[in-house]
């Protein structure tokens, strides 16, 4: 494709099309379900997604669309009543869903690491942060306690914690929100994972700190040649940090493609609605925002046909009866009977 990105070489954007080669992570027809009193909740409902070596893929959608459950399915960290009932998740040729819990322990935190939205709940309050970082390295990298300590100090410095030696024996409550997220990033990167899952890593942070953290993740991932899945509800973060973007609705993918193509020329009405919901620099203050009406569907009783039709301004009889599959449009794929470009350049 060869878009000109020469003006800013420090951002490791690929050309955005599906990179060649074998994907590092291959999700095939994944179904993750929860048994609840209301019935079976289909959190992920037939999702297929490939992640290629070295790319940063943004996974976007509203709360409850299945983004986090996709990540937790990969990590095999689903809550008790949830289970990946069908499909496969292939990581380096191995189906993670069939791995023993011993194997998963080695992969989790080792080859695949995850950064959570709320560091306060993801980190242990009763263990010093230094201990938490070195523990992972002692387990996964087989380092001695002293070696791990040295490396942990380097990492803390690398993620921008001032005076790491003094902070090493601090507890997590002694850190600010941004610093906590830096600690979690240090842990995630400590074992040099090949795949990073970042679940809303900056949602709880202020804008300036958010920018610092996003830049940090981007820089570290680039240095290590890491592949990353960025889960967010904010298209702005996708625009600045990702190569490709996948839009999820009701547990399935409705659109996927290179960031430029999807954000500048969204095909699916849901993607258009998500983009229109965020005020842009072009919009005039006071204009009405173009939004998605209504609420996300009840995952325990999904509508027939296209799952988006109850909220879609374009829906007709066909949409209500038949579910659209992903089709290729230009560089992207969208699942919609009514695909029509909103903004043609």
């Amino acid at each position: 494709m060869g878009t000109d990105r020469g003006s800013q070489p420090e951002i490791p954007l690929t050309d955005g099309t599906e990179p060649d080669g074998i994907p590092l992570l291959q999700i095939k027809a994944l179904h993750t379900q929860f048994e609840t009193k209301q019935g079976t909740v289909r959190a992920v409902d037939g999702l297929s997604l490939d992640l290629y070596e070295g790319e940063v893929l943004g996974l976007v959608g509203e709360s409850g669309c299945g983004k986090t459950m996709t990540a937790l399915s990969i990590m095999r960290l689903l809550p008790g009543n949830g289970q990946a009932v069908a499909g496969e998740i292939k990581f380096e040729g191995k189906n993670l869903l069939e791995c023993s819990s011993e194997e998963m322990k080695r992969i989790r935190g080792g080859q695949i690491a995850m950064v959570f939205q709320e560091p306060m709940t993801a980190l242990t309050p009763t263990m010093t942060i230094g201990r938490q970082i070195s523990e992972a390295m002692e387990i996964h990298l087989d380092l001695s306690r002293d070696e791990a300590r040295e490396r942990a100090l380097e990492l803390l410095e690398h993620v921008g914690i001032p005076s790491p030696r003094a902070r090493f024996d601090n507890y997590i409550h002694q850190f600010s929100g941004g610093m906590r997220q830096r600690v979690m990033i240090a842990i995630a990167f400590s074992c040099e994972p090949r795949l990073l899952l970042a679940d809303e890593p900056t949602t709880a942070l202020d804008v300036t700190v958010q920018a610092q953290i996003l830049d940090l993740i981007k820089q570290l991932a680039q240095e290590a040649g890491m592949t990353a899945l960025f889960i967010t509800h904010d298209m702005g973060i996708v625009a600045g940090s990702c190569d490709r973007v996948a839009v999820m609705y009701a547990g399935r993918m409705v659109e996927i493609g290179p960031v430029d193509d999807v954000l500048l020329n969204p095909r699916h009405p849901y993607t258009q609605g998500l983009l229109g919901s965020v005020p842009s620099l072009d919009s005039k203050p006071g204009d009405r925002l173009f939004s998605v009406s209504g609420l996300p569907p009840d995952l325990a009783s999904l509508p027939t046909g296209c799952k988006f039709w109850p909220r879609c301004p374009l829906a007709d009889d066909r949409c209500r009866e038949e579910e659209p599959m992903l089709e290729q449009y230009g560089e992207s794929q969208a699942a919609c009977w009514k695909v029509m470009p909103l903004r043609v350049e």
Partner: protein
Amino acid sequence: MDEQPLLSVRELVKHFRMPRRSLLRPADVVRAVDGVSFDIWRGKTLGLVGESGCGKTTTGRTILQLMRATSGSVHFGGTDLCQLSDKELRGFRNGMQIIFQDPYASLDPRMTIGKAIAEPLMIHKLCQTRDEASERVQALMERVGLNPYFNNRYPHEFSGGQRQRIGIARALAVDPDFVVLDEPVSSLDVSIQAQILNLLQDLQDEMELTYLFIAHDLRVVRHISDRIAVMYLGLIVELAQGLEIYDAPLHPYTQALLSAVPWTDPRLARKHQRIILEGEVSSAVNPPSGCRFHPRCPIAEERCQVESPELREVQPGHWVACHLA
């Protein structure tokens, strides 16, 4: 803008005394709001932005006299609210309302939402009979996009966006002139955010409401505000017409904030040169000397460490507190 502003805040100060940690040392004082002045005209929106802990929420609550100011004045329709007794204030309460970030925390979980919306009507004796109140509740629920059929339900049965609609209905029940919106959409999904922003704008047009819109998302603030004030460590560092701040920010802090905004246009995201601020916001207990922003400022000079810059009008309607702007 010749007419009198509806709200006039002058040199507003709110300090909090921390519990004493030692007998030998005086108690720490958090200088949450440290001399803030601005005006809001009827029917307009002032956006108040800044990072966590900069004092924007305290400013909003002190204006409404939910906390009493340490010093300064808040003139609302000509009356200085800071000089009124609690009893005298009651008469003004229905003129000013607040909508909180977390509508769930601000609703009584054991009160049906119909009752919750009717409560302010009864307290302020705006409805004489129960029937009149329930009629009014029905109209309000319809107006904010809730099905009146649900008035017997409890807050936990609603989604975040719907709860925020309940909060809006409650605030508007007493027909206020002025509403403080404290991060009203920051806990909502983007699609729901847009629905609520549209609703707030429609209501403003219909009821000629005056808003103080407190938020940290600069995209949202740009969309809804006529003028914008940027706060840093208890002080306003820049104040101007909305678009002017975005087109030509003068304060280095505003510039850094704006450069960190994640716009959804990928071309813009790449072109944008981000100004990364060093470190984090200093403590409001011992704010830095001189300009409070100087430890993080990329262009600070010696003078900035000593002399505190005044908020001055550098262009008509554009105020900035920086020696170098």
